[in-house]
């Protein structure tokens, strides 16, 4: 913490820009650092380099037409954002979703969560200097992408959920491929743990680094693995249940100390829990239609509505203000990375510059989601 450092002589401090173009900040994040030698006194994240105006675009598009935009906000959890948006509008309008569609949504959403965590795992170790786990994680992630490609048609920016269900049905090939993938990923845990988790260099670079304790996390409104790493077992899937999650059994992994290693372990355990969810959902997949009745142009009633789902990075909220027409009056997206990023102003002060990369990577931000 900053209070433990002696007061710096003013001439010794200098300003450094970990600029928008940097190999290790995931996206165009600018960190404006005030340094005293090697120690950071103040860290100021400056966002906005990737602002594309999604929320403004929502005001001039119909509800259906906005669906591709949701995928592109956080491109790593495209299906999760799709699901959140579609569920928000469905709840507002009162559209019923058949159970088969709900289960398909849950399976594809959990697959997307696993692929996002695998990518985070790869890029985190790559930032720390180990170049190979990145490719091992991508090798596994390719299989998820192929599975999702077969049903949705896209690999990264899906527009799969529709109002009332999903766009396309799944077949037996999907079920078989997913089951095979679950087995394959479970057999990889040994490799990952031997190569990374037990590695003494990795442990030294992440244990005790970037401690975000319970009070800080709650104060800044962090959600997701940042909050769960700090010891608070808060998960939207359990706290405000939606879809078919109440019927599925899974645990919420938490960490004790809130350092980078705990967040890393929480994410790996989340992958395991997602695999459990997928297994249960595959067994219970009912037959039936995949789309409920929904009007061609959805017109939610007048009013405001907020709906949150749990994405790979935290709680994603969609706040829709509708004025009765087919166009939303205002659509605001609560992005988890923005709240998680703000913790950095407090966490980074007092640490070494060399630890910045480790802390930044462990918080797992996706800057396009912050900037929208």
């Amino acid at each position, binding site marked *: 913490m900053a209070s433990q450092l002696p007061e710096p002589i003013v001439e010794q401090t200098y300003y*450094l820009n*970990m600029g928008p173009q940097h*190999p*290790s900040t995931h996206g165009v994040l600018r960190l404006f650092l005030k340094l005293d030698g090697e120690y950071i006194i103040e860290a100021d994240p400056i966002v906005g380099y990737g602002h594309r105006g999604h929320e403004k675009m929502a005001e001039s598009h119909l509800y259906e037409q906005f669906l591709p935009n949701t995928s592109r906000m956080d491109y790593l959890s495209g299906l999760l954002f799709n699901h959140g948006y579609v569920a928000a509008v469905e709840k507002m309008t009162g559209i019923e979703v058949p159970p088969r569609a709900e289960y398909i949504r849950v399976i594809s959403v959990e697959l997307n969560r696993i692929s996002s965590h695998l990518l985070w795992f790869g890029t985190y*170790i790559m930032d*720390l*200097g*180990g*170049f*190979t786990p*990145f*490719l*091992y994680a991508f*090798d596994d992630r390719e299989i998820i992408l192929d599975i999702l490609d077969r049903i949705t048609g896209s690999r990264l920016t899906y527009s799969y959920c529709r109002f009332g269900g999903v766009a396309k049905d799944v077949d037996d090939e999907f079920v078989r491929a997913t089951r095979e993938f679950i087995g394959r990923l479970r057999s990889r845990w040994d490799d990952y743990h031997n*190569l990374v988790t037990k*590695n003494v*260099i*990795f442990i*030294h*670079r992440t244990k005790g680094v970037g401690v975000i304790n319970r009070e800080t996390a709650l104060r800044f409104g962090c959600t997701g693995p940042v909050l769960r790493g700090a010891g608070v077992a808060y998960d939207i899937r359990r706290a405000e249940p939606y879809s078919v999650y109440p019927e599925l059994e899974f645990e919420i992994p938490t960490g004790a100390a809130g350092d980078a290693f705990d967040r890393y372990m929480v994410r790996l355990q989340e992958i395991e829990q997602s695999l459990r969810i997928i297994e249960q959902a595959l067994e219970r997949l009912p037959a039936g239609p995949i789309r409920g009745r929904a009007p061609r142009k959805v017109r939610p009633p007048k009013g405001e509505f907020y709906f949150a789902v749990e994405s790979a990075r935290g709680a994603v909220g969609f706040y829709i203000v509708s004025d009765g027409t087919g166009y939303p009056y205002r659509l605001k997206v609560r992005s988890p990375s923005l709240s998680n990023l703000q913790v950095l102003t407090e966490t980074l002060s007092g640490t*070494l*510059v*060399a*630890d*910045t*990369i480790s802390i930044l990577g462990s918080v797992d931000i996706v800057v396009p989601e912050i900037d929208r």
Partner: protein
Amino acid sequence: MWQSLVTLLGPDLARLVVGLVAIMALVQVNALFLVWLERKVAGHIQLRLGPMEVGPHGILQTIVDGIKLLSKELITPRHVDWKLFVLAPIVVFIPVFSCFVVIPFSESLQIRDLNVGVLLIFAFSTFNVLAILMGGWAANNKYSLLGAIRSVAQSVAYEIPLLLVVLNVILWANSMQMSAIVEAQSRVWNAFWMPVAAVIYLICATAETNRAPFDIPEAESELVAGFHTEYSGMRFALFFLAEYSNMLIVAAVATTLFFGGWKPFPFLDFLPIPGVVWFFGKTYALIFGVIWVRWTFPRLRFDQLMNFSWKIMIPAALIHLVVYAGIIKLIR
């Protein structure tokens, strides 16, 4: 041809000249081969193929890369210290040629068998540090300087355990002459009965060449590139090639000191394989190990790197020296 050279220069000098020419050829071919080997090994560890386009399985890739680097403009920024800037890539190559003079490639293939061979090698390898410091200082850029200073601190810290461990070998062989050290391993290689020494030597060697988990000066030193950020074109190529040549020297020295030099396995000496082949086989096996380590582990943070050297490596090397001095005294 050889006779005319001998009559012209005298036998010693002729041997030196021919040897140096051969060494230059060796260093170039080695650099070509090593860059290709590293990219291929890195590719296969990462489940991909590495260079495949140029030449069969990408063998000619390094030559093409060299041509590309040759054709780049040598940018000299305005505010650099011009003399040091130009001199640094040249100085980094000096130890390479000097150290090769004393390495025994086989029983008779040694350019000059000085009786302080080991001392020469370690004296010249500190030029590496000087060249890096020159490069970082000349670039007139606070990040280059920071990278260079870190590299110097790292090199100095890891040289101490290196030398302490080599002392064991010298005690056993009772001389600093490289061929005598190889002779002293005729029954059992040093690595088998001093395994800790071999391990310490290999770790310090990778730190000396700025590779693997210790590559803070070389890879992105968190903020910008290291001490060679301001160098472009052939100057950068010289730094790059010097790194691979240093790897070869360090591996060759490790082979000579710990792994028996050009001697075959003690129970395999009936095979008609010449000593040179054994020597290069062992050297390249060690280099393969260094490459393997690089692509497996993440990087150490700088203060952890220094802690590791001062608090673990040096006490270990000292204790090892004392213990083995006692053991050698008992044996003799």
